[in-house]
């Protein structure tokens, strides 16, 4: 079945999906879109519920046989199911649970913090005409806050703390192993995707985190990941951000 992947620069959720695609050896038409200009909202599938209301915010979209799919971890699971390459999730159900559970904490706690800090350090430049097309009221509100430069100090501090907690978890997990779940998995891709750009934004969080730093280097050395990063058209793709998932409304 033909596949088209609409993706941004290889950072955040676009990184996860591109890397899963290449790791699995799947052929797809790659179409680069300016996620940080709001270009996803002019795709013909933009108003489909699963794209318009994706919790992930401005992420890539994979179109397969007319169905538009969003949310990078689940697209990666799909690619893992259909592609010929080595599995991206462990075979053992408990280890699979741990992988999904890890990714859930990453997308729920770390991703909103990283996207908030990333957009603060490297504000995206939306086109007003495209913003008017955004179907989700709360996603549009996040764009507007970024456009107006509204970044509350307490949210910035809390986001930095959340990034530091994620790095600590990764550092602890990597004791005695090369990859987070033992075998290389989607958990490595998703964790790297959100944290690669945080090394310069929250340097204190990475200080002395030797295992995490070498895990990032190891990941960048994988042939599929090298291919992904070679797609970058900006000098530093880890500095390319668009609004991500919202910060938990409950606090």
């Amino acid at each position, binding site marked *: 079945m033909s596949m088209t992947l609409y993706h941004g620069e290889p950072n955040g959720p676009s990184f996860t999906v591109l890397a899963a695609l290449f790791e699995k050896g799947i052929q797809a038409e790659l179409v680069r879109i300016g996620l940080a200009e709001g270009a996803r909202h002019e795709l013909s599938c933009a108003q489909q519920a699963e794209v318009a209301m994706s*919790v992930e915010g401005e992420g890539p979209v994979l179109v397969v046989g007319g169905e538009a799919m969003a949310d990078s971890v*689940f697209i990666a*699971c*799909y690619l893992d199911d259909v592609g010929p390459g080595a599995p991206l999730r462990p075979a053992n*159900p408990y280890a699979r649970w741990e992988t999904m559970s890890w990714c859930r904490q990453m997308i729920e706690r770390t991703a909103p913090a990283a996207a908030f800090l990333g957009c603060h350090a490297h504000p995206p430049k939306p086109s007003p005409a495209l913003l008017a097309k955004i179907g989700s009221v709360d996603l549009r509100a996040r764009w507007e806050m970024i456009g107006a430069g509204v970044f509350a100090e307490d949210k910035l501090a809390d986001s930095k703390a959340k990034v530091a907690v994620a790095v600590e978890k990764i550092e602890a997990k990597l004791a005695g192993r090369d990859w987070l779940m033992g075998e290389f998995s989607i958990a490595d891709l998703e964790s790297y995707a959100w944290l690669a750009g945080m090394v310069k934004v929250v340097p204190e969080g990475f200080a002395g985190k030797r295992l995490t730093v070498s895990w990032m280097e190891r990941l960048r050395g994988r042939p599929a990941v090298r291919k992904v990063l070679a797609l970058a058209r900006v000098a530093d793709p880890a500095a390319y951000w668009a609004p991500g998932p919202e910060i938990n*409304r409950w606090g």
Partner: protein
Amino acid sequence: MSEVTLYHWEPNANSGKPMLALMEKGVPFDSHYLDLLNFDQHKPEYLSINPQGTIPAMKHGNLVLTESTAMMEYVDETFPGPKLMPDDPLDRWRIRWWMKFMDQWLAPSFSMIGWKVFVGPAVQSKDPEELKAAIERIPLPERRVAWRKAIYGLFGEDEMKESQRRVAVGIRMLEEALSKRAWLASNQYSLADANGFNLAYALPLSQPSLSNDELTPNILRWLRAIYARPATKACWALGRTSMVKRVTILEQPHIGREHVA
């Protein structure tokens, strides 16, 4: 003693998700009821099982699992019984999309309303010092904030309005999805339906002006179809509070706008 022990509160929201999945699969389990309103989930006995103090948690032999949606996938993959995830990878993607959308976007809005009208008032009569100490024992800072808001009625007007807006949007999305398929995310009953029922089982009672047989016929058809399943009946029979007894509204053959009064 069963191989599986589930630590849960009411068949509602996160607790109800693995309860219903286990029941659908026909997996026997020891039910360990934690009284959320008595803060059982923050007591040392439970924290030794799940240090984060979130409900539910499941023990399978020596393995401990948390995160209710990932737990449901584990239940489906590990035990025999009817499959709750279809074989088609696209269906599996759609099921996961809907579960995340409900878990992270829609359910927090429902529960903000639920905590304001049910959980908060249910604990407010307790001794203030006891409540203060109970909040201090909560391991996760974000849960501490949530409990403080519920106990002291601190949910702001803006955030309640936003929650109500999201509930209305979510209801429209559910109705649209269910007008395309028999079940929420695939053509067979799946984890997305078990998840969704836990979120929406009392919808015609809690949101009568937004969900009823006239406005959202597909949601009502779907809720009744899930309620008719033996597993759902067995699961909701484990409920102890008036909150989950609301499910019996689904026994009414027609729920029109008039039931609002």
